[in-house]
């Protein structure tokens, strides 16, 4: 009786689509190594984990929002990353021992941004797409203003941490992993997670089942902003400073890793391991194609083709059921 449920839960896990993101990542990994006949495997894995961590962190945030159901998406992730990074770096001012203060500032920025986004959505009844888009312009401006003329390096200890390793794995990957576990626990084990998943499947049914749906929505928009802020803080520390365009590529990336990772774009079904797999895959595809001498064009084409193939596959699965 006690083992049966865990076993079936495990089985359920394996039939979930996250396995495909990891297979794809493994394939891309093998393809690169095929060219070097196995040399540089460690370095490649290390780089994938380092760079993949940032995509995974913002991807998990975006996943939570997309889980809320159709129409929910956060387009302010890049601006939030930049803003949190610049304000944190400015506060720290390269002084040693301020890393925690900087982290607090970044997280506070995330909290404020999330609350502001949800206020626009809830009070002004703006569609989330347009609300987060318009608000992101403001955040971007604040970032530009605070960043102007300042080339602040992160405190040395923080930079060392962000680029360092522990037990052979990059520290940022550990952070991403810890966050993934936390998100997984929230989604699978906590009441809040259940409420979120219920709201995303059918908002009206969830409300009628007693779920406080507005509170769930608010918490989700705050969560995505806080995670984007954390990613921005880490990325700036990792790359030796904040840049205005540092978040740019993470807008489409965050949505892409959610979709490739096997979460349902229709909501109610999120997939934490899939986001990590997809994040690694996105990096590895680039490095594979680079090592085969293919340009950015091929890389983009393939990424687009993969995203579309995945949606079509998901839709035919749905029709068959």
């Amino acid at each position, binding site marked *: 009786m006690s083992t049966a449920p865990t076993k079936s839960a495990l089985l359920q896990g394996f039939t979930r689509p996250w396995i495909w993101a990891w297979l794809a990542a493994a394939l891309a990994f093998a393809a690169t190594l095929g060219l070097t006949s196995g040399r540089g495997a460690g370095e490649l894995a290390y780089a994938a984990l380092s760079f993949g961590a940032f995509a995974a962190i913002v991807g998990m945030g975006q996943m939570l929002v997309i889980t809320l159901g*159709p*129409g929910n*998406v956060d*387009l302010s992730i890049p601006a939030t990353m930049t803003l949190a990074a610049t304000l944190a770096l400015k506060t720290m001012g390269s002084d040693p021992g301020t890393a925690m203060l900087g982290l607090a500032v970044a997280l506070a920025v995330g909290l404020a941004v999330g609350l502001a986004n949800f206020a*626009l959505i809830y009070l*002004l*009844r*703006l*569609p989330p*797409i*347009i609300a987060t*888009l*318009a*608000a*992101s*312009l*403001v*955040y*971007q*401006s*604040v970032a*530009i*203003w605070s960043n*102007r003329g300042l080339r602040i390096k992160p405190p040395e200890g923080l930079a060392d941490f962000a680029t360092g390793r522990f037990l052979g794995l990059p520290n940022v990957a550990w952070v991403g992993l810890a966050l993934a576990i936390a998100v997984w626990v929230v989604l699978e084990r906590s009441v809040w997670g259940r409420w979120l998943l219920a709201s995303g499947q059918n908002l009206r049914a969830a409300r009628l089942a007693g779920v406080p749906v507005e509170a769930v929505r608010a918490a989700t928009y705050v969560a995505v902003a806080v995670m984007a802020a954390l990613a921005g803080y880490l990325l700036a520390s990792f790359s030796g400073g904040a840049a205005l365009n540092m978040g740019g590529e993470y807008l*489409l990336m965050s*949505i*892409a890793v959610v*979709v490739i990772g096997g979460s349902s*774009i*229709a909501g109610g079904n999120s997939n934490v391991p899939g986001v990590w797999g997809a994040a690694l895959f996105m990096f590895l595809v680039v490095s594979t194609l680079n090592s085969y001498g293919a*340009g*950015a*064009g*091929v*890389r*983009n*084409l*393939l*990424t*687009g*083709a*993969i*995203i*579309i193939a995945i*949606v*079509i596959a998901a*839709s*035919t699965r749905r*029709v068959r059921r």
Partner: protein
Amino acid sequence: MSFLSRHRIILPVVSLAVLLALTFWMQPRAMSYFGLNLLFNLAVPIALATVAQMMIIMVNDIDLSTGAFVSLVACITATFLNDAPLTGVLILAALVLSYAAMGAVIHALDLPAIVVTLGMSFVWGGLALFVLPSPGGSSPGWLRTLMTVKPPYIPMAVAASIIIAVVTHLLIVRSGIGTVLRGVGGNAQSVARAGWQVTWLKALAYGLAGLFGVFAGMALVGLTTSADANIALRYTLLSIAGVILGGGEFTGGKVSPVGAVIGALTLTLAASFLSFMRLPPDWQIGAQGAILILVLTARLLFARKGPAA
């Protein structure tokens, strides 16, 4: 009732008028042929891209690939269309058809448009890099001439915007098929029940979006004389904002072509206005966002008052 039914166009017009008045007040010299041309110089491609986005929003979808698509068209215009016009035209026609096919597939397989267009944005971006790996190319001479023509009395940018607004208004609001297309956004079930093939109608809407996307890319190259693969990426968000500013809504087929063009002009003008205001450049983007939020809030007040009045 008649005020209410028309109020959707009033707000964009008022927003643009207020912004224009403020601009003239800050910078009286702008109130001239050249001043206006300068203010609205880049409005034409943005207006065309906004109209393209509107076609998609009209049928209750959203297009995240507009910017990438316009960039691709710009690259093709600056290369093939300039070097081998016939090939260039054929490629652009194929792009329009592929847009229509995308619409048909999205409807037939019931796919989420937001993800399909996201994927297509990577595809268009990849193709653009193939066509033009590094910034360059040059505008066909006739396109350059067309975009820089100086008609009497009315600057080119303003005249072109008016023409775009009138043509799309005739196409979407006045014509029979445009009415049916808006009907798809309003109540697709009832349109299907009346015997229409909704898949074809969606393909038509997407095809029109592709067509206007092509015009946007060509107009952009005519102004900038060269292209690169990222030249218009920001058009995706600008075009969505323009449609909504122009009184459109994400669902229900409520779009206004004239409003969309005005929305695009407002966005363009907001940038010029803010620079006239001697607002520190740091705050210009943010002020654009604030203006966007402000106008949308005003719309909410209108909508709230609507049913009560």
